[in-house]
């Protein structure tokens, strides 16, 4: 069937991606993951399972983790999107990113952006989480390499450091 014959109107949306205002014309069917990767060239969010179980496509929408593989770009209209590319501050890595490096919590790296962004949301809500809290928060993020131990250590450590920074400032 000729898809164009049923092609619906495109829409103009405005959103903020990693702090930068973006305007774009999208088709309603366009997925947020494709929008970020193919239109904006932000390759940090990865497509793996494509059905919301692995978390490698996680981005934050108004601060909350979503599976970009199953979220329409349309849903990001007038909202804030944060991808892993927007986490470092003027070239300075976020404490979570440093902790992942120091704890060797990255092997192939495919899950890493999702792990870090999901953990970021946790640390905003629970300043210094214990391993059990990290484990339950990251339950929907799969890693096929590390065995999780180092990831959990890294998040707990980053939480401790952030809490200490908060306490001293």
């Amino acid at each position: 069937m000729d898809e164009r014959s049923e092609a619906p109107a495109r829409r103009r949306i405005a959103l903020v991606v990693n702090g930068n205002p973006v305007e774009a014309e999208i088709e309603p069917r366009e997925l947020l993951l494709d929008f970020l990767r193919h239109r904006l060239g932000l390759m940090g969010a990865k497509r793996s399972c494509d059905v919301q179980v692995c978390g490698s496509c996680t981005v934050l929408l108004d601060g909350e983790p979503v599976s970009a593989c199953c979220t329409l770009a349309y849903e990001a209209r007038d909202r804030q999107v944060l991808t892993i590319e927007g986490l470092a501050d003027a070239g300075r890595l976020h404490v979570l990113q440093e902790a992942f490096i120091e704890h060797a919590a990255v092997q192939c790296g495919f899950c890493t952006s999702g792990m870090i962004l999901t953990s970021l949301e946790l640390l905003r809500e629970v300043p210094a989480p214990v391993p059990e809290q990290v484990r339950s928060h990251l339950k929907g993020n799969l890693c096929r390499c590390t065995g999780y131990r180092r990831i959990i250590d890294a998040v707990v450590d980053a939480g401790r450091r952030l809490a200490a920074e908060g306490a001293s400032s």
Partner: protein
Amino acid sequence: MLRPFEIHEPATVTAASRLLAYYGDEAAVYAGGTELLPVMKEGLAHYPHLVNIKTIAGLESIAFHQGILRIGALATHRQIERSPVVRERLPLLGQVACGVANLRVRIAGTLGGNLCFAEPHSDPAAVLVASGATLVLARDAEERRVSAEAFFTGILQTVRLPDEILTGVEVPDPGPGVGAAYHRFALHERPIAGVAAVLAVHEGIITRACLVVGSVGPIPARIAEAEAGLIGQAPAGSVLSAAAEAAGRHADVLEDLYGSVDYKRHIVAVMARRALKEAAARGHVEAT
């Protein structure tokens, strides 16, 4: 890749229902999209018109009024899990929401979408049936109420008419002496089996019992044989265990990728025993 579709943004339930009536089987309600979009991505269904009900104000509100907890259809699992009203009035529902799927699905997925999709592996469905909940359906400007027990008719099937919108769920306050519990068993996200138990215990005797088995069969269903063995009895371990065994034996169980019939029956009995014990203990605490 998704095939092209248009998204409509009604401002009222009536307008949404009229869009559904107008486009007929070319249209579907679009809430969180956590079930709908994967189905469309797989090409299992195609709707050229999605009616986004998230543009309708107020459909996500959660409130307690005159003995009834009302949860809007657009309340997400995450909102239910965090709602102070739910925590105070029906803490079980909050705990159950907290165990649904994974964080991302809880953030986007709504209670209404969970119920209307009627995928058999649903946690809230079993709990709502056991709690005597009522679903509020709106069509054009009219409203009707259907018990959660009567809502589900089969796998992915409900009594909802194509142009009806589920606007909310109403759960009556259980009252004193009533204990409720839910136990699920899951290896991945969705439950293999889930059992909800609600017991009213007065002066050491079970006066009302509702035992609902979910996920293993086409719909969440009360198990009359198990309930009959509970009424009029003291909530002793042997009584609860016998009822749990009956639940395992009499549940409508289908074999699927989640497991064989025998396996699921076994799991149901174990979950039922745990749920009954916890419900009885909670009912006891409530009564004293």
